[in-house]
């Protein structure tokens, strides 16, 4: 089991600690608005093992993006909750350059070339860029953008921009990768292609990955574990294991057992009364 609700607050043995990359301990989030506080996320518990691929899925407002942003240290959990990434606080962890992140929109610097955009995290971390040219080139080839090194974001298609964002998230050789609906803006056909690509990249590296998604098939195809969340207030409804062996082939998308699991997820998302 790669992800489990962490009911016990202290890990029983120090040895178990090492294999867990991410601990979410009673972390909730309440936003202050003009009309009073709004609870985006109930205090939740979650553990993610090293090298696991965990997909977070749920309707809008279920707090899945908030959870991811808390792991990235972009939001602070409410008092009483804590998040530890490899035993460190997110702010400390990200300063060491161990975190990779990609958002729903590529969010590239429009005035920079593909190569320079991929190098940007290195600059933020204050690392030398010059020695990394070969590494960056290999990432460009990994995401299939060879020949586009000098192109500006405006000259690329949506799918290509998203691949640049993935390469950028990998440039620091992160030990934890956070993906916030990275393919949410792409059409279904392109999205499937990117799913296959992402799996290929992930299998090569086995980086601990947290993926936020709207797509049931995406979550099942990519995840070792799918965390189903529900809204009002945001909470974890169920954690479902995905049994399919890796590497998963595109043909899996049309397999009956794949659809069966997707239907099972649909029920979990919509409650017992839903007809898949």
């Amino acid at each position, binding site marked *: 089991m790669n992800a489990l609700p962490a009911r016990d607050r202290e890990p029983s043995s120090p040895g178990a600690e090492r294999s867990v990359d991410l601990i979410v301990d009673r972390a909730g989030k309440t936003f202050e608005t003009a009309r009073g506080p709004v609870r985006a996320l109930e205090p939740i518990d979650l553990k993610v093992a090293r090298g696991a691929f965990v997909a977070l899925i749920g309707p809008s407002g279920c707090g899945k993006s908030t959870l991811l*942003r808390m792991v*990235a*240290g*972009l939001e602070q959990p409410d008092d009483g909750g804590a998040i530890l990434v490899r035993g460190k606080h997110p*702010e400390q962890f*990200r*300063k*060491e*350059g161990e*975190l990779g*992140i990609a*958002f729903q*929109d*590529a*969010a*590239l*610097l*429009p*005035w920079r070339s593909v190569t320079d955009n991929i190098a*940007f*995290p290195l*600059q*933020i*971390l204050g690392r030398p860029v010059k020695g990394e040219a070969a590494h960056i080139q290999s990432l460009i080839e990994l995401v299939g953008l060879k020949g586009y090194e000098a192109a*500006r*974001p*405006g000259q690329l298609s949506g799918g290509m*921009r998203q691949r640049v964002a993935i390469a950028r998230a990998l440039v*620091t050789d992160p030990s934890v990768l*956070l993906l916030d609906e990275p393919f949410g*803006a792409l059409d279904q056909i392109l999205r499937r292609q990117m799913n296959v690509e992402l799996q290929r990249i992930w299998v090569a590296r086995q980086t601990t990955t947290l993926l936020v998604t709207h797509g049931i098939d995406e979550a099942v195809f990519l995840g070792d574990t799918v965390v189903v969340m529900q809204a009002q207030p945001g909470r974890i409804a169920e954690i479902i294991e995905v049994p399919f062996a890796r590497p998963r082939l595109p043909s899996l998308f049309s397999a009956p057992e794949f659809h069966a699991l997707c239907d099972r997820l649909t029920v979990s998302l919509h409650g017992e009364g839903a007809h898949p």
Partner: protein
Amino acid sequence: MTAPAYRENARILFGTLVALAVWELLGAYTSWGVAMFPAPTRILAQAFADRELYALHGLATLQTSVSGFVIGVSVAVFAALVFCRLPGLELAFRGVNITLFAMPAIVIGPLLVLFLKGDWPQIVLAALMVYFPAMSATLLGLRTVDPRLADLVAAYGGGEGVLMRHVRLRGALPDLFAGFRVAAPLAVLGAVLGEFGSGTRWGFGAFLLSALPQGNPARLWGIGLAASAIALAGYALFLLPARRLSASSTAVTLAAVQPSARPKGGASTRRILLALVAVALPFLIWWLGVTLSHVSPIIAPGPGRTVMFLIEGRHAAAARAALGHALGQTLPIALLGLLAGLAFAFMLAALSLLAPALARGLLPVALVAQNMPLVAVVPFVVLVFGRGTASSVFMAVLVVFFPAYVLLHQGFTSVPKAASDLVAAYGGGRWKQLVHIAVPYSIGHLIAAARLVAPQALLGVMVAEWLVTGVGLGNLLNISRGGLDYDMIWAGALVSILISVAAYEGVGLIERRIAR
């Protein structure tokens, strides 16, 4: 170049040639044309005869404008960087910034002469006029950061310094150049207005003052056109880099979250404190400037003395009466000009929607004309309207109309397509769209335009009074300047600045109420 753009350019060229030909005919062969609209060939001939004067005056104004521009934008960019890092400081400097935006620049020239020597009064006035548009555009550019990029920088542990260096500075460049573009013509206007106040010998301001009584229409037109040409050259200089940069800086997709320009939150006591500082700071700077410059308090009184000049003492009643009389002449005309200019601009912008050909013809003219220095139209106004009240009104309408039309045209054309499609889907024509969609939609733009041009209306009337009609507040300041009545210069400047700021803030208050 695409074929329609080519045809459009050909049409503009043809229209310009026809207009020039008509102008030439009227200006050469009708008696009123000779007096008011001297033919282009005559203006050129006169300019050629005056070429040595043009070289001397033109060079002086050019030098002043460029120096003022460089100083003004340097301070503006520095201030924008500081305000971006410390938003509280921007709130504290709000009073200073708005004063610099709203002040009728013509009243500042005579004050600067009291402190500065040589060309410096004109240079500083040009710099003061450049400051606000350059600062606000740069600050807007620095603040408008794609929130996703800010998240990205934060996710890698980067702080505000990294964000500034890699994202904000480069992202602000198009806005920076857009600000420079607007500021460049203002530097020329500031230089010329400063020349009026300083009584300098060389410069287009001096040239215009000496030419006004001579009754040589061709020379007056030449001066106006030459001053406009310098100002528009400055505008054009920054047009190209701004276009090139914005093509490579615009985010490919829109950010879902709009960045908030105003710092959010903050304790209310801190806000009240900052607001008080904002009001006090301009007066503090005045007091400091007067004290530190060691100029005699008779020549350069502080805020206290200037207020007392109008309240107590032997001459207070007379001073109040003179100022009140002048205001009674100036303010109604400024208000009339403001309302007429806005109404005219609103009607024409609405008509442009019904008849798009009108907009095609008028918009380029308005875009150019709003950047023409105000003083450049003085010759035209004198020749056509003489030296009566009509000149003042026309001048105010003119300075209000062009920027208001450009803003309102934007308002009318930014109506969401879905809204007009809805009207069309139920069989409504252009008129129905105008009444139900475009006009209600553009009220916000109308008020925004009113806020921005209200100070301009006062400046327009005061320039006309100073140079042309010889009545009102503009004239009072000119006479006080000539008569070395320093207390009155300061009091007149204070009152006119306060009125401008009040007009700006007053319309802003209405604007905020409507936006709510």
